[in-house]
């Protein structure tokens, strides 16, 4: 009996040891991405950049810089790319950061890099104003202001500087006898006139949710003023207040009138862009990132000279102004504060000095960096956006910009219920407000 018990104990001890050894193997991780000793002063041997699969342009532009203007920096610290699906960003970055394996330069979730976010609070993201020093002047003040507004600090580089507004088909406007609407009421009139002329007034990618919430958000900014969403974040106003509810009702009105056409609530972004660029719809609310589609002759059948860009119109009696464009600076691209060193700093300085001109010249991308070289042959639509960017005095954020991740997702997913009449404007805003309050 004793022998049997001893054997049993031996087997159990052996099993436990195997389990502990395996778990220890799984849980172990070096703090240094390069595999060497970790530590605040250790700069890795390569300039590793984590970007989203969906943003191939950024990888291409950085590679071009490494081969061209930043060849010297690349020799000292070779560029290496890592990729992630945009939807997996939070999970991926959380995992890398918890293992001390964050790349030198990485995409992050908006929430994460804010001062109270997981990375921001942990001091893991660098402030570009400090990193760049004198080279910080290469970042356009409007772009720096947008980054500061969204992230609460200069913790992202503005590889894109996107204006959001209404792209429209000039020829259809001319045939329907309408001018750029200056007020929301005029937008409704213009839509009715376009419909009467046989055109679908608007197209939107309802499956994505956010293209619809942006319309609602812009109505709110025009109605309440540029600090409308800051008031919500600060708890000074509620989304259920009548002036905010009006935004949801305005969006619902556009849907109820049938101005978005058939099947809009399940339409994806590619189909919606095609509807505008092939002349099936007269207007599309979108960001200036649509330029890559507009400048592609294979996609753009209506001709680039036929494409106009206007801000979301004012709301009669509202505190906002039509000239307050919605702007964003793309997804957060942060720098690892813990492994910052002279070679990394040299890379960021080189990017700040050269990215603007190169991206505009080679890909027609409007970024938040200064254009330090002369760029010729800018496509017509890109030039229009550049002109608008130069004339901007004040920008506003987008509807969900200051929301936590859960409320952000809820705003987008419930939008389809709102526009299809399965959820009232009151319920939509009440549910969203409850989610925002729960996160505070």
């Amino acid at each position, binding site marked *: 009996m004793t022998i049997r018990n001893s054997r049993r104990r031996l087997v159990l001890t052996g099993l436990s040891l195997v389990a502990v050894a395996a*778990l220890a193997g799984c849980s172990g991780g070096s703090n240094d991405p390069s595999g060497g000793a970790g530590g605040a002063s250790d700069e890795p041997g390569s300039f590793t950049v984590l970007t989203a699969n969906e943003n191939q342009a950024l990888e291409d532009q950085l590679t071009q810089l490494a081969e061209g203007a930043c060849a010297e920096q690349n020799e000292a610290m070779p560029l290496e790319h890592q990729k992630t699906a945009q939807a997996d960003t939070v999970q991926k970055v959380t995992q890398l950061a918890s293992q001390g394996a964050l790349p030198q330069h990485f995409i992050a979730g908006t929430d994460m890099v804010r001062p109270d976010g*997981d990375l921001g609070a942990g001091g893991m993201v660098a402030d570009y104003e400090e990193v760049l020093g004198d080279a910080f002047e290469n970042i356009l003040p409007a772009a720096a202001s947008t980054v500061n507004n969204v992230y609460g600090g200069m913790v992202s580089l503005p590889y894109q500087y996107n204006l959001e507004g209404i792209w429209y088909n000039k020829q259809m406007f001319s045939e329907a006898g309408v001018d750029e609407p200056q007020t929301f009421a005029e937008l409704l009139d213009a839509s009715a006139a376009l419909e009467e002329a046989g055109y679908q007034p608007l197209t939107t990618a309802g499956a994505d949710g956010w293209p619809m919430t942006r319309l609602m958000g812009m109505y709110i900014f025009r109605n309440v003023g540029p600090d409308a969403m800051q008031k919500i974040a600060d708890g000074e106003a509620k989304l259920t207040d009548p002036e905010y509810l009006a935004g949801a009702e305005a969006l619902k009105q556009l849907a109820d009138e049938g101005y978005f056409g*058939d099947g*809009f609530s399940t*339409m994806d972004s590619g189909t919606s862009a095609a509807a505008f660029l092939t002349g099936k719809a007269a207007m599309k609310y979108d960001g200036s990132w649509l330029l890559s589609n507009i400048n592609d002759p294979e996609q753009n059948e209506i001709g680039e000279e036929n494409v106009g860009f206007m801000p979301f119109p004012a709301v009669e009696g509202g505190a906002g102004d039509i000239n307050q464009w919605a702007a964003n600076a793309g997804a957060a691209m942060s720098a690892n504060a813990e492994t910052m060193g002279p070679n990394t700093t040299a890379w960021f300085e080189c990017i700040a000095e050269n990215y603007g001109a190169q991206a505009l010249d080679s890909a027609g991308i409007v970024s938040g960096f200064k254009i330090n070289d002369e760029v010729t042959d800018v496509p017509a639509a890109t030039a229009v956006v550049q002109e608008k960017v130069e004339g901007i005095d004040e920008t506003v954020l987008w509807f969900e910009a200051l929301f936590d991740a859960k409320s952000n*997702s809820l705003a987008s*997913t419930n939008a389809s219920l709102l526009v299809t009449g*399965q*959820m009232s404007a009151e319920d939509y805003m009440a549910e969203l407000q409850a989610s925002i309050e729960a996160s505070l």
Partner: protein
Amino acid sequence: MSRVFGDRKTVLILLVPVLAVYGLLKVVPVLWSLGLSFFEGNTLRGFEFVGLDNFTTFFTDGPALHALWVTVYFAVVMTAAQVVMGYLLALMYVFVLRKGSAFLRTAVFFPMVLPTVAVAMLFKSFVAVGDNQGPVNDVINFFGGDSVEFLATTSGTMTVAILMTLWTSMGFYAVLLYTGLLDIPDEVIESARIDGASGLRLVRHIVLPLSAPILLSSIIFSFNSTLKVFDSLLALNNGGPGTSTSPLTLYMYRTAFEYAEYGYGSTIALVLTLLCLVFTVTVFRSSAKRTED
């Protein structure tokens, strides 16, 4: 053989590696997840012990309870549909088509090997409206009806999801149940026929009771796979419109990986595990009771 299995050392040598792997890959993660459900946070900002707070939150969290309802509804409807359709097909293979059923069995089974995302894209295009209208709305238009945006409504999305899952899975259940029906001795069927049983009476009194074990396995198998439905509802309409067709698995994924709330995500996982356990035990017990009766 009995000498080999009678030796304790041999049994240990054979079992220990398997049990160790099973324990490390199955039991440890489940226990780990169970432990996490008493904490809040993530690997970056750290974990804080919150006791039973996550469980209290779950039972007062509207979207979580809705996701639980979607999961149970989908599991019950799908299990009923795929097991009944599978059984009818199996009966047809055995009693109508007999040896000529090979082609049909393969054809009906084929969708099972297709990736779920591809199937979801296919069904999405079937029911599409607008410029790229699908054949379903073409047929509706042909008979004078207006196009229907199926994926814009909860009932429409759920109907498409159920038909889609049924299309892919019924062939599998048909083959599973077919093998069970083949085990019924021909003599039993023949003697029942001689005694005057045929058609529905033969199925009701002879085939059904004799195929009960495989039917029970199919039901348990079906519940456990449909309670964990994820990819089909995600690929079809992203759990929408809104979150109205979002099952517990999708809610768990979003909570843990999109909102970085690992503790609450683990709580949802635990609820799902318990749900599978409850369904399995219920089916087992009801069948055991019937056997005793």
